[in-house]
């Protein structure tokens, strides 16, 4: 079916030489190209309305296999644009009818796009996830003198055991918070994503932190060293670093600036 095509918007950038996108393929399997307006460059690719129109898209987004292919294709384009210059990624499934509509969006939102481009220029995103470490085997407590019978002794031991587990969990949560505060001091901006579901991570351990950190490109090495140092410091938690990412987590207004982290350092309850 020779269906109608529309334009998938991958990202917005500026100062991009279109030759830097040579060979790049978009989510619909067609080459990406640029639409320029208002001093900005939109990176787009044609997609079939039959697959990416409102109804089919709603259905396809429920299909994890389809979603994975599309998400990776979108990411590959965003990542390539980010290697060429500052990039504002768009959320998955932003589609316009034609170049003229995209030009209008660039013009109407020029100030917003420019502000985000300024914010992410020469910066990159790193992800750090913190998991609770598996609890070490606990030595059996010496049996206390039994003056009240086996039932009471069992209940007392059980209470002690639960209390110890609670303390271990609380220590891990506190340590994850310390890690976040330490990493925040190395970052221009930070954002906490919700912890990921265990069914998706495949990890038995509980995720305590799913942080994103916007770091100056020239400080990336230092950030990695800080993660490594923090990894060795705590027995209660385990760290995992991902990245560098295009600045996905910092293309919205809903993130904290580093100034907010006075709160963490003063150890107020996390929001």
């Amino acid at each position, binding site marked *: 079916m020779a269906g109608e095509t529309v334009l998938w918007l991958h990202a917005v950038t500026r100062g991009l030489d279109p030759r830097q996108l040579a060979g790049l393929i978009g989510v619909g399997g067609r080459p990406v190209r640029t639409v320029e307006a208002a001093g900005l460059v939109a990176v787009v690719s044609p997609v079939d309305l039959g697959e990416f129109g409102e109804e089919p898209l709603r259905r396809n987004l429920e299909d994890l296999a389809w979603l994975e292919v599309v998400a990776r294709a979108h990411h590959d384009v965003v990542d390539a644009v980010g290697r060429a210059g500052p990039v504002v990624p768009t959320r998955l499934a932003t589609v316009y009818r034609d170049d003229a509509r995209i030009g209008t969006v660039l013009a109407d939102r020029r100030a917003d796009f420019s502000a985000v481009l300024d914010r992410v220029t*020469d910066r990159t995103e790193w992800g750090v996830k913190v998991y609770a470490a598996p609890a070490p085997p606990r030595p059996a407590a010496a049996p206390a003198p039994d003056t009240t019978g086996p039932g009471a002794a069992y209940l007392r031991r059980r209470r002690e055991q639960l209390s110890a587990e609670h303390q271990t969990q609380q220590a891990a949560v506190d340590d994850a918070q310390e890690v976040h505060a330490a990493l925040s001091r190395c970052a221009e901006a930070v954002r906490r994503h919700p912890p990921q579901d265990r069914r998706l991570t495949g990890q038995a351990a509980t995720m305590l932190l799913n942080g*994103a950190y916007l770091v100056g490109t020239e400080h990336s090495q230092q950030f990695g060293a800080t993660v490594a140092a923090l990894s060795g410091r705590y027995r209660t938690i385990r760290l995992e670093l991902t990245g560098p990412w295009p600045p996905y987590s910092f293309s919205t*207004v809903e993130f904290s600036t580093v100034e907010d982290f006075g709160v963490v350092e003063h150890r107020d309850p996390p929001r």
Partner: protein
Amino acid sequence: MTSGPPPAATAPVVLDQVALVDLLDRVLATGVVITGEVTLSIADVDLVHISLRALLSSVGTITNGPPGGDAESP
């Protein structure tokens, strides 16, 4: 421009292919939100994600925003 990634040696744990779950955290829950004229309005995106949440609970927070907020700034 100079916003490319640092050399691989500076990244202690960089995987060859990004984990899907990490990618979905980012491409579904973040990024500039603009209302596409052909497909999903923001409210519709929220509906889609509500049903995805059964499978992908990690992206659930995006439904916390006000529905129909098509003027969200980047």
